[in-house]
């Protein structure tokens, strides 16, 4: 498996959903949960199955206003790929 393509539409996998409180947002999945803060939370909140990977990156590059937009793309790609292998995200 590879990181998401530009036109893929990342989304939570079947049976995976948001939970926890407003402060401590979590993704709940079979027999587990991950707490999401900061960047991770912002990425996954945009994985709604309609935004493309490309759109998500563009939004976050603007949001973080960094000098290294390519690093954002590759970091987020790696992050989503890891979650895909755990079957928490699909794209």
């Amino acid at each position, binding site marked *: *498996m590879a990181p998401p393509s530009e036109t893929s539409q990342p989304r939570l*996998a*079947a*049976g*995976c*959903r948001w*939970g*926890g409180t407003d402060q401590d947002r*979590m993704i*709940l*999945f*079979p*027999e587990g*949960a991950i707490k999401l803060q900061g960047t991770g939370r912002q990425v996954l909140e945009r994985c709604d199955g309609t935004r493309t990977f490309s759109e998500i990156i563009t939004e976050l590059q603007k949001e973080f206003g960094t000098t290294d937009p390519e690093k954002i793309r590759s970091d987020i790609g790696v992050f989503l790929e890891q979650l*895909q*292998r*755990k*079957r928490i995200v699909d794209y």
Partner: protein
Amino acid sequence: MALMVSQALALIAEITHRCPLHCVYCSNPLELAAVESELSTSEWTDVFQQAGKLGMLHAHFTGGEPLARADLTELISAARSAGLYTNLITSGIGLNEGRLQGLVNAGLDHIQISFQDSREGPANWIAGAKAHAHKIELSREIRKHKIAFTVNLVVHRQNLDHLEEMIAFIEQLNPERVEIAHTQYYGWALANRAALMPTREQLNRAVTIIADAEKRLAGRMRIDSVVPDYYAKYPKACMGGWGRRLILINPSGKVLPCHAAEVLPGLTFENVREKSLVWIWQESSSFQRFRGEAWMPEPCRSCERRTEDFGGCRCQAFLLAGDSKATDPACSLAPAHSVVESAVRKANSGAAISEPASSTSFVQLQKLTGDLWNYRTNPQ
């Protein structure tokens, strides 16, 4: 009250001990809860509300066979309303298209179906019931719904020789996750340990086969598997530690830190019919019993691994070494480690793999296999 109590995360709702199967590796206690003692729908609903308020995240519906409860759909709905993620751990017996749709509508998030083998004869022999064909049909039905699907494959000496075939079989069922669960020795599985313990050779082959399958299936299927603790160097962090993450409530409302804890002497377990869940979790003597480090003997007390594995499993320490405080005998550093070494030696000294038996009746099957193992019976 100096001990820091951690956040309870998972509620194991053992809603009944009734079950249509008789699996020889079952981890239920040998003494099963009587049917009349089972908590009612409204009692369970109240429990889920309490669990949600306690900040718990997951409810695992199990048993026996949870589908044996006619009110399961209501229970799932109640757990969901209380804010819990719902996992159903089941054989699938008692589930058809309509009932599955009902559970999905009620908010079921995840279903885990157990499989005993890839081959029908052996699968039914291990379960003591003709369940295999139905499970296959059910798996197809599950794929039509947007819930998470896990296949739990229970492995042991009698089926490890065809692990590759079993993995290939499971791939066709197309779950997102596969758990390759080496039998653990509690309850019925402990009684039948001699027939279930794999050889070292079987285990080593399994490790390689599973590693290969993980690579091949990466991105498609997630494989979870742990080396059985009898063969490991250090013990497992049982349940994530005593009273750290997990609460189990048995069919009659008894609150336990795990499924085996009733075997431990000198502990009084509370009941949800009498006390609140928050009090039981935070203050009851049974849940406090093995929290922190003050209870630990050496070598655990000065061991650098004590915050990782908490000295292993208390129930196993009692069952194998006669002392619930002792270092889990599965640990290579345990004073009682020779008990585990001896069981391993026995498993590796030419203990045979048996031919699957079949018969038209369960009673006859029990007679045919009497020398090999005891099938799990049903509660009165």
